[in-house]
């Protein structure tokens, strides 16, 4: 797996460390990865939901 570095604000990073530990994540990376994946899934879903409605609705049989 490739590694990329990202920059986080120091105070945010402190919070991330704290909550990662509190919620029982084995590492800060795991916590951040999980959060990002969750957020991305949300965005992707709402996008395709709109898209589905727009595309299907032109079909006269449904409304």
């Amino acid at each position, binding site marked *: 797996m490739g590694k990329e570095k990202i920059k986080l604000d120091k105070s945010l990073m402190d919070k991330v460390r704290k909550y990662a530990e509190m919620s029982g994540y084995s590492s800060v990376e795991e916590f951040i990865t999980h959060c990002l994946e969750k957020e991305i899934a949300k965005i992707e879903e709402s996008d395709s*939901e709109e898209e*589905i*409605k*727009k*595309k*299907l*609705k*032109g*079909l*006269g*049989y*449904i*409304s």
Partner: protein
Amino acid sequence: MSEPIHRRDFLKYSLGAASLLALESRSNLVTRTFGKTATNKKVLILGFDGMDPHLTNVWMSEGKLPAFKRLIGQGGFRRLGTSIPPQSPVAWSNFIAGTNPGGHGIFDFIHRDPKNYWPVFSAALTEEAKKTIRVGNWVLPIKGGEVRNLRQGKAFWQILEEHDIPAAIFKMPANYPPVPSKQKTFSGLGTPDLLGNYNSFRYYTTEPKEIKEDIGGGSVHPVYVIGNRVDSKLPGPANTFKKDRPEAEIEFKVFLDPQNPVAKVAIQDQEFILKEKEWSGWKRVRFSLIPTQSVSGICMFYLKEVRPNFKLYVSSINIDPADPALPLSTPSAYAAELEKRFGPFFTKGLPADTSALDNDILDEGEFLEQDDFVLQESKVMLDDELGRFDSGLLFYYISSTDQRQHMFWRLLDEKHPAYDAGLAAKYGKVIENIYREADSILGRAMDKIDKDTIVIVMSDHGFNPFSRSFSLNTWLKENGYHVLTNPFKLETGNLFPDTDWSRTKAFGVGLNGLYINQRGREAEGIVGDGAEKENLVREIAKKLEEFVDPKTGQRVLLKAYVAKDVYSGPFVGEAPDIVLGFNRGYRISFGSPLGKMEKNVLEDNKGKWSGDHMGAAEILTGILVANRPILAEAPALYDLTATILDVFGVEKPRDLIGKTIF
């Protein structure tokens, strides 16, 4: 000036010029029809979508369909067995593949995605570029995306091609994108507009409040007349090259004369003038995505009103056949060849704008004016194809028969909840007239062909009224098969937002489909495969067939087909578990197919979309007419496939289930 010009050099120069000229004619080259010399047999098939045997008989007995009568006199007439369910993509796929849906995998306009219970189009899948790079705000694909036709099995023209028999297949439904072939084919029903939608009209008006808010198949754009000018934008496809995928758009201006009912539209580098209530004809628009990429579309403008309110309608932007952004034909150059011959033409699968009529954007007369353009184009192109037809098979498809029956049944049938005597006086004969139009199309074709040509006229299903709507998901809820997180909720939005899947046993998606929430198959399935599911399916099917409409005392469904009883072939496992076969006059509600629950299970249908064909296959047969005696007593769509192969002496592949009709 020292040396005289050498003769050889002169020749060289003039050759250069000649080859330059030769280059110019390249695009005039006509794609060669495949396998020209292989057969001297000719078969012409005219497909009239949704032509109903009962109505055909009635008007034929009144002497209104002389060409049909003539053709039947040379051969015969039968009801043509349709598919379960009798929806166009399913029915035409039965014909294309020569199987029932278990063999081609198209069970409904809409299937469900087992990952999330969401409705998806059954016919085609658009996959976007998987690998992209981002440069600033741009997203550049490294590997192109693709559009895939999801119909399985071989198309009969692919089989003919293997035997070197030429076929031209024009606007065959359920063939988008057209399956690979050297034959000339052009895609039909299922072909999206440039935006990737089934329909997306635009309506620009200074009076947006008179339109319903949430309309399907288009959008309303409020505009203002300032200084006798209207400025607005025509939205195009999502720009996938840009971050956040904004819609590409084109600005346009409309200049109004302050007294005369006339306006000038200025869009991109073109200007055209329209009087009130005039159509523009095809106009080409080009959306630029990134500096090197743009897509071309064609659309029609209709100036509905100049004053007191400004109202301008713009049709769906059809994919430009001269420069198709998505695949429309095989060979791929065939679309541009047709455009060169005829100019721009409708490429959207179902060209008529039923959404605009349904939402009062266009009135009945305006809808018919536009659909007349569709018919006119079809007639011109058919005439031309018939002139080129010298060998093999020619299939030609007409959509207007289906679309007009959907929209005008309410004015044919006094008992329909949306019947309107005033409108009926004016438009009560629309359906009769389209049957007579079909007759005249057939008549012209018969005059153009030689007597050895086999002529087959077919439709994919019949028609019946859609007077009462049935919300399958609401019924499932009321019968305890579908459970909401909040049991007091009376209605829900699309896509099952309030379903408690951990307690739900069944759900409806699509126009005829009912699925069991099966463990291991659906995302949060709870019903075990085997006896548990089997018993549940039989139980629900029985209850559905027994369900009676309290208002009419009639059964709502004639049949609740259990998939494994009626389908055969490799894709049966992908079918809905139960397929609804409605009684005459009934259909699924408008919301249930997308995972919505209406308040009531049954409601009157007061919409303009008033005729339909979602019933039991037994009561919605299509028509079959041929100029050869038809020996089969009860032929079905897949029998026609076998017949075609038989006529051309091609051995029928084993997975085709039909038998020849002659």
